[in-house]
């Protein structure tokens, strides 16, 4: 991000502080939610959604992904696709197993 002017940078500092606050709040929310009486499926989705929001904030602002170059985004898009593959395909194969 070497193209940034001093002005821009000062503005983004505010953003960073905001993100920090959001992350802190969301952390507390996840913990609180885990004490709710949710079914394991609901709990799972809630936790993953919150974590994903936090992850997006970190990647998007701290790691500047929201304004990153297409080359990087393409690499990460590919990675993300294969991440989904390795995360879920083995497990799907497992549930489709003839008899466990």
């Amino acid at each position, binding site marked *: *991000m*070497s193209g*940034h002017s*001093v002005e821009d*940078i*000062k503005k*983004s*500092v505010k953003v*960073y*502080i905001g*993100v*920090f606050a959001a*992350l*802190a709040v969301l*952390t*507390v929310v*996840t*913990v609180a*939610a*885990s004490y709710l009486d949710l079914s*394991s499926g609901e*709990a*799972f989705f809630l*936790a*993953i959604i*919150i*974590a994903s929001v*936090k*992850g997006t904030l*970190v*990647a998007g602002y*701290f*790691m500047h992904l929201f304004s990153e*170059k297409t*080359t*990087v985004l393409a*690499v*990460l898009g*590919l*990675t*993300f696709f*294969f*991440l989904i593959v*390795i*995360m*879920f395909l*083995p*497990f799907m194969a*497992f*549930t489709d197993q003839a008899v*466990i």
Partner: protein
Amino acid sequence: MEIPYNVEERQDTGMFNAKLGIWLFLASEVMLFGGLFSAYVFLRMGDVTGTFISGASELNIPLATFNTLVLISSSVTMIMSWVSLKLGEQKKFKTYLGTTLLLAGVFLVVKYFEYTAKFHHGIFPETSTFFAIYFTLTGLHMLHIIGGMVVIFYFLVPGSKMMNTESERFTNRIEIVGLYWHFVDLVWIFLFPVLYLL
């Protein structure tokens, strides 16, 4: 003959070399932790005796929450150190980077207490597959923290000479360390709910 685009950006890609390099490295890290998360999902789904649920309930949530906040803060100080460099405020840079290192240290200390508490209760990796994956994931994450600390320390003390000699290059390097550090934070953001809360 210098290698091109070591410091300056290449026109059509808009990047200097190390920037792409670190992103590629992080991509491979995503797959590394992805593989382990996949193992977690796979083992959890095949877990008929409920070791995952009972195991998670033995973990210390308050400590881990505290640690999450510590790590998030360290991410913020990391990015602030880079901002300070951009603004040419070298003193502030050192303070922020030093704080990052300190917070990382706090994280490790907390982790140390968590681990020893487990060992005291006779909980080891071989206790159940839950603790096996717990120790593997957090242990590997910890190795990443330690690696990051070494690099941060390098730029804080011996490597900081470059700040004055090649300031643009130094700023680039700090940006790269920052990317790595945020990634380590990001991994923890997922580790925390997956291991402690589910």
